[in-house]
C-alpha cells in the first residue's frame, strides 16, 4: 500500500496540477484554469425580431433571462452593451439561443448577433445566427 502511494499521488498530482490546467489553456471553452480576473475579453449581443408585417424590433437580451439558468442569465443580462468577460460556448449554441427568443413577441424570424473581442482595441469577432420561428 505505502509503496504504491507515492506513484498514485504523483500521477494524481501531475493530472490535477499540470495536465488538466494545460488542457484548459489549450481548449479554452471554460476559460484557462486559475486565470481569475485576468481576461480582457468583452462581448455584446444584438437580438432583432422580424414580425409578420416585416417590422424589425430590437429585443433586450435581459428579456431572455427568465428562460435561462441563473448561471447563464447573469452574463446575458445587460449584454446589449459591451460587457467584460467571456460567454463560454455561446458561439456554437447561438441558433439554439436565438430560438428561445421566438416566444418573445410574435416574431416570424430572429437574428442574434454576438460580438466578441479579446482586448478593447482588438478586432471584433462577429457571429450571426438567424432562425425561423414556428407559427
Amino acid at each position: 500500500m505505502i509503496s504504491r502511494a507515492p506513484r498514485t499521488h504523483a500521477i494524481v498530482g501531475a493530472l490535477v496540477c499540470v495536465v488538466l490546467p494545460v488542457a484548459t489553456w489549450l481548449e479554452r471553452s471554460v476559460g484557462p484554469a486559475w486565470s481569475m480576473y485576468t481576461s480582457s475579453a468583452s462581448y455584446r449581443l444584438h437580438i432583432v425580431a422580424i414580425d409578420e408585417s416585416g417590422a424589425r424590433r430590437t429585443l433586450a437580451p435581459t428579456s431572455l433571462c427568465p428562460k435561462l439558468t441563473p448561471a447563464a442569465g447573469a452574463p446575458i443580462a445587460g449584454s446589449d452593451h459591451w460587457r467584460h468577460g467571456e460567454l463560454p460556448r455561446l458561439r456554437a449554441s447561438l441558433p439554439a439561443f436565438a430560438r428561445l427568443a421566438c416566444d418573445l413577441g410574435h416574431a416570424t424570424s430572429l437574428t442574434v448577433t454576438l460580438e466578441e473581442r479579446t482586448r478593447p482595441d482588438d478586432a471584433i469577432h462577429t457571429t450571426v445566427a438567424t432562425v425561423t420561428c414556428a407559427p
Partner: protein
Amino acid sequence: MNDELRATRRLSAIRIAVGALLIVRTTPLVALVPGPAHTNVWMGWPDGRWTTTLATAVPAIAIRALVVVRTLGAAALMLGVRARWTGIVAASAAIAVLTQDAFAATHTLRLLFAATGLVAIDGGCARAIVADRPFAPRASLGLLRAFVVSVYAWSAVAKLGAEWMSGRTIAAFRDDGLIAGIGARVLLATPARCEAIAIAVFALEALLGPALLFRRTRATALVVAVAFHVVLEIVVHPDLFGFVMLALLVSFVGDDQKAVDSGTQPPPSQPRLQ
C-alpha cells in the same frame, strides 16, 4: 505525535472545511453567502431553463440523481463516513453536474470540486464517524500543497500578458464596479496606480508558491496568503474561492520537521545494515 498522525489530523480538518463549503455552495444554504446570487438553490438542478453544456447533454432525471448523490456524498465527506469513497463520488457527481451548465463552470466551483476529490484520499482517517484506513497521509498532504502552489503558479502565468501588466485589465474591472470599497477606489484611482497594483499582485502570486514550499519562508508566506485571500474576499467577492484556498492552506500549517529539529521527537532511525 508522529508525522503520519499529524498529517492525518490536518487532512481531517481540511476535509471537514471543504465538505462544509461544498454543502453550503451547492444547496439552499448558499443563501448564507453574500456573493453568488446567480445560482440555483440546488446547484445544477434542472428546471427546464436553457443553457449550454460542456459535454453530451444528460437527461434531467440523471442530473437530478447526480445532484442527490453529490449532496449525500458531501454530507458523508464532511462527517467522515467512508470519506475516501463518498468524497470521490461527491466530487465526480459535482463535476458531472457542472458539465451540464457551461456558464456555471466558474473557477470557484472547479477549485472546490478538485479540492473535494483530493482531500477525500486521506482526509477521512481521523475525526470521522466511520474512519478510513490511512493510505499515505504525508503524500496526501504533499498533494494538497502541490495543488495550492499550482493554483498560485497558473494564476501568475495568466497575468504575464501585457494587458494585465499595464494595469488596463484591473482598470476595466474597476470601471465595471467589480472592485468595491473606498480603499480600492483610491488605490486604483490612476493608470499608474493600476499598473503598480497589477505588478504587485503578479509578483505576490509568483512568489507565494515557492515561499510556501520552503520551510524558512513558510510561516511568513502563510500569513501573506491568508491576508491576500481575506482582502480579495472583501474587495472583489470572488464567490467562495478565498474560503476554499484558506481551507487548503491548512495543509501548510505546522511543520512536520519541527519536532525533529527541536529535539522533542527522535529523528527517523537509520536503516540497519545487514
